[in-house]
């Protein structure tokens, strides 16, 4: 006989869903702030990878007849250095920053398409890992980051060059950039729609923070420039695998078609890498000068002008290929024209700090460093627009000097300004100021020691991308100096990593508004709640948070915007 016993059942404990665990929250998130942070951490990881590749290059070139790398590995390393820094560091870093900051700045609760946003991030991560995994298969891309045909078609039937065996190295590159392109398109249209449709009441286009403006222009550039790269690398893959003849001169194809297509992506791309930096500097300088930006309209619309002009200058990368004289004159003119809106910005920044109450905190130092370094990169860039001069130094280290002043002295300095500026918002902790200052000075010295001698080496005739050089060419001392500089930069990055880890754990609490800033992102908790704003703010001027803190002298009372 069965006695029925009442079994005491344990109270039902609901199993935590995966999306509720700490890791699950990150892996499944569609919150723009979490996605932004994931973008930035991923980008920084690839920055370290690309940086190690740079150190390998500089170690190989430190002394003449270097034997650190073999020639094939050297080709792979410099190709992956460029590809990584551009596609996997600077672009995702700016996408991440924009992701975090733009919705907060315009008073929105999230991006317009949160799931598309997450999709874009995961494509970057796996696209990046896909590209880097080529090292594991001993098949890293090896034709330079701009992958010129016909070099990329070596081994394809009917194309004669060395090595004549087909390899999959450039397939990794072409597929990798196609993947990353998908992600960038997703991100860019998300930014455009967010900025057009989700602004808080009163946040008119002409009141948007300049970082938002520059993100908008950058997104349009991505939408309209990336298709050229997609077409170019699609045709490359067809040539390599389907037997078409687009870039094969032997079959009436034209290797120059690659250059035209690639650079009609590649030059807007240069501005994709620098316009967000302009935006960052236009946010940081006013706050640390205690003044509104000088000439807001000019800063904003010169950005738009740069965006338009950037589509008209691509062939200045091709002066040495034998373009018609008329074409050379056109592209030299358009290239010098683009210096005008860029210079407008420099003067605006100078006028912004002129007469201000400057405080030289780390973000300000990096922003000022940006202005100085970018100015050098801009000036030697204008020099390269002069066709006869370009003939002399094209494909020499002078070009390397130019692009690194723009991209390292420019983009990277602005990225560190942004990290030091917004880190308190993202984490609630301040980065250590003293370590920040040490890092800044190390970087400023390192950048100039590394990249300035490249001008001279270029003029002395040292070509870019050479694996090694003979000892009697007069290049020895400067090369060694550059290598020393590269390791100074590496030291600066180590200081930053140490600062990052220690400040994250025991940094000074930041509060919601550590810099007494002007824009809406500081009118939230640090870090902000998932919904950003409890009530959507109403905007009445270009400095809404300044207005709120200073109701007596609010911008909309004293100035007409």
């Amino acid at each position, binding site marked *: 006989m069965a006695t029925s016993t009442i079994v005491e059942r344990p109270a039902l404990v609901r199993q935590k869903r995966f999306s509720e665990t700490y890791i699950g929250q990150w892996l499944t998130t569609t919150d723009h702030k979490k996605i932004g942070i994931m973008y930035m951490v991923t980008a920084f990881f690839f920055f370290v990878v690309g940086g190690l590749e740079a150190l390998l290059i500089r170690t190989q070139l430190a002394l003449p007849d270097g034997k650190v790398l073999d020639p094939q590995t050297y080709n792979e390393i410099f190709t992956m250095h460029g590809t990584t820094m551009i596609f996997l560091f600077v672009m995702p870093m700016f996408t991440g920053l924009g992701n975090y900051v733009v919705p907060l700045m315009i008073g929105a609760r999230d991006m*317009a398409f949160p799931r598309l946003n997450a999709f874009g991030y995961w494509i970057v991560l796996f696209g990046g890992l896909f590209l880097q995994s080529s090292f594991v298969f001993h098949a890293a891309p090896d034709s330079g980051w701009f992958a010129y045909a016909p070099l990329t078609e070596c081994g394809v039937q009917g194309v004669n060059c060395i090595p004549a065996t087909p390899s999959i190295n450039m397939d990794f590159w072409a597929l990798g950039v196609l993947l990353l392109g998908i992600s960038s398109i997703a991100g860019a249209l998300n930014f455009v*729609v967010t900025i057009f449709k989700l*602004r808080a009441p009163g946040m008119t286009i002409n009141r948007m923070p300049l970082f938002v403006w520059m993100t908008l222009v950058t997104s349009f550039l991505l*939408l309209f420039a990336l*298709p050229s790269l997609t077409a170019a690398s699609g045709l490359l893959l067809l040539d390599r695998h389907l037997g078409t003849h687009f870039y094969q001169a032997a079959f009436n194809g034209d290797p120059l*078609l690659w250059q035209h*297509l690639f650079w009609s992506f590649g030059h807007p791309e240069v501005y994709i890498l620098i316009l967000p930096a302009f935006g960052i500097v236009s946010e940081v300088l006013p706050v640390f000068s205690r003044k509104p930006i000088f000439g807001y309209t000019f800063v904003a619309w010169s950005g738009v002008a740069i965006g338009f002009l950037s589509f008209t200058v691509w062939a200045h990368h091709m002066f040495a290929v034998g373009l018609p004289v008329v074409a050379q004159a056109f592209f030299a003119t358009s290239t010098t024209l683009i210096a005008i809106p860029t210079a407008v910005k420099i003067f605006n920044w100078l006028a912004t700090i002129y007469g201000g109450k400057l405080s030289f905190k780390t973000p300000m130092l990096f922003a000022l460093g940006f202005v100085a370094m970018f100015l050098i990169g801009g000036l030697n860039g204008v020099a390269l627009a002069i066709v006869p001069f370009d003939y002399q130094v094209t494909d020499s280290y002078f070009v390397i000097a130019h692009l690194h002043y723009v991209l390292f002295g420019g983009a990277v300095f602005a990225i560190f300004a942004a990290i030091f500026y917004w880190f308190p918002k993202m984490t609630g902790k301040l980065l250590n100021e003293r370590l920040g200052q040490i890092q800044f000075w190390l970087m400023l010295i390192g950048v100039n020691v590394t990249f300035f001698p490249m001008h001279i080496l270029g003029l002395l005739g040292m070509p870019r991308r050479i694996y090694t050089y003979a000892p009697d060419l007069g290049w020895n001392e400067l090369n060694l100096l550059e290598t020393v500089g590269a390791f100074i930069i590496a030291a600066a990055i180590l200081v930053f990593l140490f600062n990052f880890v220690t400040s994250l754990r025991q940094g000074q609490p930041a509060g919601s508004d550590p810099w007494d800033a002007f824009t809406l992102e500081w009118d939230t908790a640090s870090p902000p709640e*998932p*919904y950003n704003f409890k009530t959507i703010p109403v905007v009445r001027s270009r400095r809404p948070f300044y207005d709120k803190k200073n109701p007596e002298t609010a911008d909309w009372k004293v100035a007409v915007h």
Partner: protein
Amino acid sequence: MSVAYREGIPALEQVHDEGGRSVGWWGMMFFIASEALIFANLIAAYLYLEIRQGGHGWRLPSEIWYPLINTVILLGSSAPIHYIAAKGIEKGSQRRLIWGLLATIVMGAIFLGGQVYEYSSLISEGFTPQSQLFGSAFFTLTGFHGLHVTVGLIFLLIVFVRALNGHFTKERHFAFQAGEMYWHFVDAVWVFVFSIVYLLPLLRG
């Protein structure tokens, strides 16, 4: 978002929707704009290579009548999805939505079948992507369009199955709207591809 609801904070759309086109419409529009530029680049490459080869015009070994009929079918397929399906669902008619979609899908499939037939007859005449530069350019440009037709058809088939399951209402049918936008784009871009590939050589005589 759930957090926002719990604390009584209005959701995204409620705060920001100030009328005008929906967020999804704009997103789709910029996506299409970017796609269109891939076509623009391929067309530019096509013309560049043609001109570099002497500019005598690339002429297909086949007659134009077949692709012309195909073009009429493809352009015509934009009518039922707009005038029957879209106008129907705006009035809440499921029946018109389903029949309009079906008509467009059938016409799109006929176009695709026609393209396959055209390809096979060209290839049997020895005109292939590998045979000459013109072949490379022709099959790439029209093939890329064919790929878009295929993607559009898959898009519309998914929307069709959802329509059969009654997923769309008078107020909520964005997936359908996006599919329609994409289909119109695929049609419109064919006008350019057809003009460049088939009509331009005729002009040159």
